[in-house]
C-alpha cells in the first residue's frame, strides 16, 4: 500500500469514527433533553418551579431542629428500636444471602458443581433472585404474613442470594482447582472438598462482598420500611407526615439514618481494605 492510500484510508476511518461518535453524542443529548422534558411534563411540580423551593423543606427541618435542639437526643432514643429493627433486617438478610448465595455459587461453579447438569438451573435461579425487586416480594408477603420485619427480611434475603451468588461465582472462577483435586484423590466428599479446599481460598473476597452487601441492605431495609415494612423507614414516613411544627422527630430520624449509613460505610470500607490488602 502506498503512503497516499494509507493516508486516505486513515482519514476515512477517522472521519467515520468521528461521525459515529458525534452521532452517538447527539442522540444521547437529544434523549436526555427529551427525557427531562417528558419527565417534567408528567411531574406534578416543574423543575424550575421546584428549584426555588429546593431548600425550603431542609431549612424548615434544620430551623426546627435547632430550635428544639434539647429534644433531639430524646427523639433519637425514641427511634432507636426502629433503627435496630432496620439493622437487624439488613443483618439477617445479609447472613441468609451469604449462606444461600455461597451455596448457590458453589452449586453453579463449573469446576466444583456436584451436579454439573444442574449448573444452568442454579444460574437462572440466581438471575431471577437478582432481577426481583425487593418491593415486589415485600408487599406481597406483607399481605400474607402481616406486618413486622419478616416480609422485608425475606424480600431482601432473596435479592441478596441472587446478587451475592453472582459475585461469589466470579470469585470462584479464580479459585485454584488443585486443592479440590487433591482432596478428591483422598476420598473427600463434596462438602469436605468445598469446606477445606475452596472456602479458605475464596473467604476474604466473599467476606468483602458480604460487607458491601450489608451496606446496600441497610439502605434497602430503610426504603422498604417507607413503603410499609416497618423499621426506621416507617418511623420516617410517620414523622414527615405530621407536618410543620413536628419536624423535630423527622430531624432525629434523619440524623440517626445518616449517621448509621456513614458509620457502617466507613467501618465496612476499613474492614474490606484489611481483607483485600492484609490477610
Amino acid at each position: 500500500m502506498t503512503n497516499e492510500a494509507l493516508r486516505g484510508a486513515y482519514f476515512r476511518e477517522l472521519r467515520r469514527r468521528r461521525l459515529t461518535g458525534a452521532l452517538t453524542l447527539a442522540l444521547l443529548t437529544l434523549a436526555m433533553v427529551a427525557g427531562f422534558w417528558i419527565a417534567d411534563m408528567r411531574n406534578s411540580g416543574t423543575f424550575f418551579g421546584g428549584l426555588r423551593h429546593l431548600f425550603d423543606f431542609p431549612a424548615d427541618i434544620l430551623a426546627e431542629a435547632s430550635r428544639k435542639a434539647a429534644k433531639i437526643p430524646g427523639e433519637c432514643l425514641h427511634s432507636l428500636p426502629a433503627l435496630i429493627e432496620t439493622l437487624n433486617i439488613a443483618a439477617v438478610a445479609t447472613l441468609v444471602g451469604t449462606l444461600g448465595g455461597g451455596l448457590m455459587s458453589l452449586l453453579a461453579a463449573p469446576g466444583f458443581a456436584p451436579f454439573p447438569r444442574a449448573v444452568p438451573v442454579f444460574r437462572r435461579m440466581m438471575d431471577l433472585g437478582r432481577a426481583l425487586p425487593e418491593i415486589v416480594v415485600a408487599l406481597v408477603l406483607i399481605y400474607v404474613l402481616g406486618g413486622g420485619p419478616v416480609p422485608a427480611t425475606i424480600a431482601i434475603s432473596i435479592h441478596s442470594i441472587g446478587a451475592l451468588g453472582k459475585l461469589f461465582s466470579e470469585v470462584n472462577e479464580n479459585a485454584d482447582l488443585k486443592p479440590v483435586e487433591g482432596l478428591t484423590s483422598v476420598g473427600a466428599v463434596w462438602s469436605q472438598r468445598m469446606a477445606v479446599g475452596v472456602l479458605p481460598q475464596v473467604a476474604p473476597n466473599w467476606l468483602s462482598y458480604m460487607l458491601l452487601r450489608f451496606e446496600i441492605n441497610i439502605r434497602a431495609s430503610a426504603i422498604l420500611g417507607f413503603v410499609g415494612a416497618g423499621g426506621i423507614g416507617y418511623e420516617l414516613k410517620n414523622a414527615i407526615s405530621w407536618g410543620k411544627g413536628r419536624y423535630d422527630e423527622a430531624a432525629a430520624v434523619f440524623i440517626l439514618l445518616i449517621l448509621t449509613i456513614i458509620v457502617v460505610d466507613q467501618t465496612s470500607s476499613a474492614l474490606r481494605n484489611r481483607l483485600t490488602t492484609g490477610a
Partner: protein
Amino acid sequence: MTAADLSVLRADVDRRFARRRAVALGLPVLVLAYLVYIFFAFDIAGLAKRARLDNAAILLADTYSYRTAVTQDHRTDTLSVAIKGSRKGTLTPAQYPDWVKVDGKATSVELPHGAKVVMSGDTAVFTLPQYGVIRARLDAQNHIVADLPPGPRPDWISLSRTRLAVTAPEGRMNMTRSKTEVFRYSLGWAMFFFTPSSPYYGHSVVDLARAVLTGDRIDPARGNLAGMAEDFWRNDVWTHGSVAWAMFETVLMAFLGTIGAALIALPLAFLSARNFTPLMSLRFGVRRVFDFLRGVDGLIWTILLARAFGLGPLTGALAILLTDTGSFGKIFSEALENVDTRQIEGIRSTGANPVQRYRFGVIPQIVPVLMSQVLYFLESNTRSATIIGAIVGGGIGLLLTQAIATQKDWDQVTYYIVLILGMVMLMDWLSGLIRRRMIRGK
C-alpha cells in the same frame, strides 16, 4: 535445629491451631446466638398466628384464575352475570358464557364435575353429585328455608335465617334475602385483551384471525386490526396504555438519573483526582461532596426532592441522579488516579494543549471503565426506579402498590411482576451486550 527450637515451633503451631479452632467454632456459635436473638426480636413464634394462609390461597388462586358471579336479585327479580363481580365485567345476555342457560324465568348455572345450580325467582336448587340436592327458598316472612339431604350438615354449608353459604369444591353459592350468587372459577386472566364493552369480546383467537384475513368487520365502524388494537390499548380493566407509559416512565427515571449523574460526576471527578488537581483543599472539598451525596441515601433525597418538585418521574430521576453522582464521582476519580501518565506524556510531546491532552490522553483510557460502570448502574437503577416510583408516585412501582392495595387484583399484580422481571432482565441483558461489544471492539 535443636530440640528446644522444635518445642518452641511446636508451641507456636499449637497456639495458632487453637486460635483457628476457636474462630472456627466460635463464629457459628455467635451466628447461632444472633439468630436466637432474632427469633425473639422478630417474634417468629407469633408469625404463625399472624400469617394469613387463607390470604395466600386467595392470592395464588387469583394469579391464574378468575371467578364469574351469576347473581339473581330477589328484590328486582333480575339476573346479572359479571366477571370478577365488577361493573366493568358485566356481560350482556348475548355475551353469557355457555354454562349459563336462561330458560324463561329459570336460570341454570353448570359447574364442574356435574354440579349445577338452578335459580328461579326466590328459589335456588344446588345439585351436587357427591352430596345430594340442596333446595333453598325465601318464605313468606322473607326468611331463608333450605332442605338439605339427610344426615348431619357438613361444615362447608352454613345456614341461618338470613344467609345460606355453600362452599363446595365444585363451586360456591351464597343466598341472602336480597340476592342469590353463584361463583364459578375459570382459568386465565379475565378480560386481558378485551372488556365486555368491546365488540371483540368473547370471540376466539381463530374467529378474530379469520375476521382479519377475510376482512369481515366485527365492528362495522372500524377495521378489524385497528379496532382490536384500539380496544386492547384502551382496555379499562388492564389499562395496557397506562401500563406501557408506566414502564416507560420507570426506564426513563433510571436513564435520566444514571446518565445525568455520569455527566455531572465526570468533570467533578477530575477535581477530586490527585493527579489532576494538585490543590488539596479543593480535592478534599469535592470528595466530601461525593461522600455527602452518597451518605444521605436515596430514600432521604427522594423525600426531600418530592417536597420541592412534587410527585412524578422527574423527582424520581433527580433522586437517582443525586445519589449516583456521589457514587460515580468516587468511582471515576479512582479510575482517573489509575490513569497511565505515559499516554498523556506522549500526547504532550506532540505539542498538544491541555484540552487536547485530556481528550486524547485521558478520555480513551477511562471510557471503558466509565461505560461499564454506567451500564451496571443503569441496570440496577431500573430496579431502584421501581421502588422509588412507589414513593414518588410514578412508573410501574405506583401501579404495583395500587394493585396490591386493592387486595383483590392479584392477576394484575402478577402481570406487573412479570413485566418488571422482564424489564430488569432485558436491561441486564442489554447492558451486558453493550459491555461485551465495547470490550471486544476496543
